[in-house]
C-alpha cells in the first residue's frame, strides 16, 4: 500500500492546523455558520439529527493495521465506541463534537489519515475495487492511478467550489466491483491494441433524484493524459454546471442537457487548448508513485495446504470458506471478506474492539493490510490459505464471520432516519429485520447471490437504484413508506431497478421481500439462475403479481 512521505504528511498537518483555526473562529462567532458550513463540509463534518457526523477518508479502501487501530482510537476517544463503513469506502463517526474535531484530525494525521474533501462541492474519495492489487486477471493495480488522482484532486485551487460534489471510481478488472458506471467520472483501465495502458472514460453516471448510467466520453485516454483530460472535464463542469438549482447541479445533468456528443466536444476543445500540459504524466512520475506502493513478500505456498484439508471436516468452517474466501492472484493465498452484516446488526458498523482485533489479525495474517468495500464489508487481502482455519476461529469469536457475503442478508443500507437529517424514513431497522427473516444460512445459500440496497431518502446513499432489490424510504402523511424496485445492478452491466408497485408501509417491507424471494425461487429456470437474471428474463410482472395479490 502507499506509504506517505514527508510531503504528504506536511500537507495533512497543514490542513489540520487550518481547520483548527477555522473551528476556533467559528466557536468565537468570527465566522457565521453560513461562512463556516462549506469549510467544515470540506473536512467531512456534517450536521445530522443528533450530533455532528465525521466522515474520514479511506483512499481507495486501503488501510494499514496502524491506521485501523487509530480509527478505533477515534471511535473510543471522541465518539461512542463504533464506526460505520460507507458505500464509498469511507468511515463515519456519528457523535463527534465540533470542538474536539481538530484533535481527532490531528490524531488521525499522525498515521496518514485525513478527512479532506469527504464532503462539500469538490472532488471526493477516488474509490476502487476492494480487491485491487490481488484479484486475478487484473490489468494492473488501479490504486496507483487512484493515488495519482487523489493527489491531483486534493486541495485543487480551481475545483474546490464546483457546482456540486464530484465522485470518481476506477476499475482494472473485467468484472467491475467499483460501480464505475454510476459515478461522475468512471475509469476503466485497459490496454489498447498497441499494448499501451489507458482508460475508457465515462461521465455523468450517478444515482439520487435523477439516476443515470454513465456514458463513454472517450474510449481510450492514454495513461499519461489522464490528469490533463480529467482537468478538461472538471473545467467544463466548473464553468457550465448549473448553480441555480442544487437538484440539477451534478455533471450528469449537464451531460444530459448538452448530450454526450456536444459535451465530449466541449471537453475535447478544452483539452486541445491546454496543449502541452504540465499535467502530462511521464513514466518517471508514474514510476515514482508506483514505487511508493509496497507489496507483500509472498511465500511460495501450496494451493492445498494440510491445515485446509483437515479443516474441511468442519462443516461450519467449510460453509464460511465457500462463502467468504475468494481466489487470490498468487497461489496459496486468498482474499477473505469479513462480513459486517451480523444477523440483527446494523449493516456496515464495527466496534472499536472489533477494529482493534481486525488490526491484530491483519498483522498476523494479512501483511498488515485491510480493505474496505463499497458493500460495507471489510477484507483481508493477503491471507495464506494455511491460515484460514485459525483466522476463521478468531473472526468467529468477534462476530465477523457471518457466512452471508453477497447473499440476501448482506444488505447495503444508508444510516437513514435514525441518524441522518436528510432522511424521510429509517433504513437500519428494515435491514435488521431482513437479516432476521433470512438468518438461516441454508436458505440464504439456496437463494444465492442477491443484493438488497436500502436508502432512507432519494439521495440514494444506499445505492438502491442499482440493487437487485432496491428499497427506498419515502414519507406519506407522516408515516414511513417504502418503494421497492427490482433488477438493478451496479457492475459492468449496470442497470437501474424497476418499481414493482405502490409504496408499502414500514411493517410490511420484510414480508414483501420474502414474497419477492419466494416468487424467484418458484420461477427460476435453474438453481444457479441468479435472482437478477431471473428478473431480466421474466420482467417485473410476475413479481408484482405475487407481491400485490393480497395488498
Amino acid at each position, binding site marked *: 500500500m502507499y506509504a506517505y512521505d514527508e510531503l504528504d504528511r506536511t500537507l495533512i498537518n497543514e490542513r489540520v492546523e487550518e481547520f483548527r483555526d477555522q473551528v476556533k473562529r467559528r466557536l468565537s462567532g468570527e465566522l457565521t455558520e453560513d461562512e463556516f458550513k462549506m469549510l467544515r463540509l470540506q473536512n467531512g463534518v456534517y450536521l445530522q439529527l443528533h450530533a*455532528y457526523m465525521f466522515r474520514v477518508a479511506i483512499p481507495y479502501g486501503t488501510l494499514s493495521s496502524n491506521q485501523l487501530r487509530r480509527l478505533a482510537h477515534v471511535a473510543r476517544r471522541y465518539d461512542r465506541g463504533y464506526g460505520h463503513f460507507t458505500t464509498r469506502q469511507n468511515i463515519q463517526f456519528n457523535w463527534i463534537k465540533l470542538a474536539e474535531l481538530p484533535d481527532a484530525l490531528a490524531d488521525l494525521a499522525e498515521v496518514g489519515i485525513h478527512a479532506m474533501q469527504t464532503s462539500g462541492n469538490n472532488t471526493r474519495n477516488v474509490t476502487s475495487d476492494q480487491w485491487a492489487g490481488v484479484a486475478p486477471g487484473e490489468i494492473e493495480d488501479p490504486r496507483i492511478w487512484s493515488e495519482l488522482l487523489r493527489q491531483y484532486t486534493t486541495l485543487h485551487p480551481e475545483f474546490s467550489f464546483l457546482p456540486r460534489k464530484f465522485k470518481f471510481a476506477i476499475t482494472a478488472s473485467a468484472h467491475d466491483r467499483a460501480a464505475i458506471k454510476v459515478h461522475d467520472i468512471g475509469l476503466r483501465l485497459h490496454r489498447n491494441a498497441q499494448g499501451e495502458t489507458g482508460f475508457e472514460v465515462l461521465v455523468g453516471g450517478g444515482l439520487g433524484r435523477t439516476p443515470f448510467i454513465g456514458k463513454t466520453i472517450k474510449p481510450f485516454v492514454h495513461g499519461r493524459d489522464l490528469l490533463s483530460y480529467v482537468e478538461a472535464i472538471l473545467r467544463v463542469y466548473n464553468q457550465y454546471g448549473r448553480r441555480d438549482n442544487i437538484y440539477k447541479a451534478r455533471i450528469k445533468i449537464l451531460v444530459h442537457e448538452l448530450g454526450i456528443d456536444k459535451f465530449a466536444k466541449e471537453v475535447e476543445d478544452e483539452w486541445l487548448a491546454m496543449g502541452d500540459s504540465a499535467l502530462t504524466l511521464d513514466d518517471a512520475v508514474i514510476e515514482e508513485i508506483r514505487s511508493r506502493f509496497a507489496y507483500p513478500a509472498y511465500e511460495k505456498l501450496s494451493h492445498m495446504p494440510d491445515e485446509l484439508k483437515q479443516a474441511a471436516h468442519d462443516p461450519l468452517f467449510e460453509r464460511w470458506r465457500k462463502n467468504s474466501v475468494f481466489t487470490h492472484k498468487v497461489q496459496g493465498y486468498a482474499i477473505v471478506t469479513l462480513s459486517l452484516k451480523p444477523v440483527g446488526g446494523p449493516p456496515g458498523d464495527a466496534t472499536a474492539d472489533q477494529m482493534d482485533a481486525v488490526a491484530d489479525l491483519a498483522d498476523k495474517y494479512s501483511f498488515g493490510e485491510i480493505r474496505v468495500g463499497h458493500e460495507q464489508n471489510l477484507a483481508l487481502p493477503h491471507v495464506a490459505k494455511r491460515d484460514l482455519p485459525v483466522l476463521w476461529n478468531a473472526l468467529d469469536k468477534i462476530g465477523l464471520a457471518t457466512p452471508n457475503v453477497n447473499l440476501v442478508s448482506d444488505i447495503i443500507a444508508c444510516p437513514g432516519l435514525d441518524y441522518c437529517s436528510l432522511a424521510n424514513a429509517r433504513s437500519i431497522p428494515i435491514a435488521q429485520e431482513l437479516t432476521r427473516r433470512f438468518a438461516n444460512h441454508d436458505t440464504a445459500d439456496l437463494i444465492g447471490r442477491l443484493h438488497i440496497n436500502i436508502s432512507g431518502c432519494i439521495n440514494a446513499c444506499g445505492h438502491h437504484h442499482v440493487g437487485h432489490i432496491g428499497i427506498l424510504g419515502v414519507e406519506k402523511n*407522516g408515516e414511513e413508506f417504502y418503494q421497492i424496485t427490482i433488477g438493478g445492478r451496479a457492475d459492468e452491466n449496470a442497470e437501474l431497478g424497476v418499481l414493482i408497485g405502490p409504496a408499502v408501509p414500514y411493517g410490511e417491507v420484510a414480508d414483501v421481500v420474502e414474497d419477492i424471494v419466494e416468487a424467484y425461487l418458484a420461477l427460476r429456470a435453474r438453481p444457479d439462475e441468479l435472482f437478477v437474471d431471473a428478473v431480466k428474463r421474466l420482467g417485473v410482472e410476475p413479481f408484482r403479481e405475487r407481491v400485490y395479490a393480497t395488498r
Partner: protein
Amino acid sequence: MTSPLQQKIKITGPSIVTANRTFDGAVVYRTAAKGWSTDLSDAAIVRTADEARALLAESIDDDIGAVGPYIAPVEIKASGKIKPGNLREHIRAQGVTIDLLSVPA
C-alpha cells in the same frame, strides 16, 4: 418526516424551534428566554405562523449557540407535558431507534 430543510412555514398545531448546539451538535430547543436547552420541556411554544417566523428568525441569529434551526411540531398532553410531534423529532429527542452495536460476548 420530509426534511425540514425543504419546508415552508406552515403551522398545524403547537410548534417549537429546534437546532443542534454548535460546539457539540447536541439536540437543543429554543427557549422563551432566548436561550437553548437540551430539555424539550423548556421549549418556547408557538401557535401561529407569525410567531413561528419570529422565533425562527431570532434563533437563526444566534448561531454561536446553535446551528440549523427549524420549526418542528409538538404534541401537548393534557398534563401539559410537551412531546415530540413526529417520528423525526422523536428520534432526535430519544436517540436512535436501534440498539447501538455491542461486542458479542
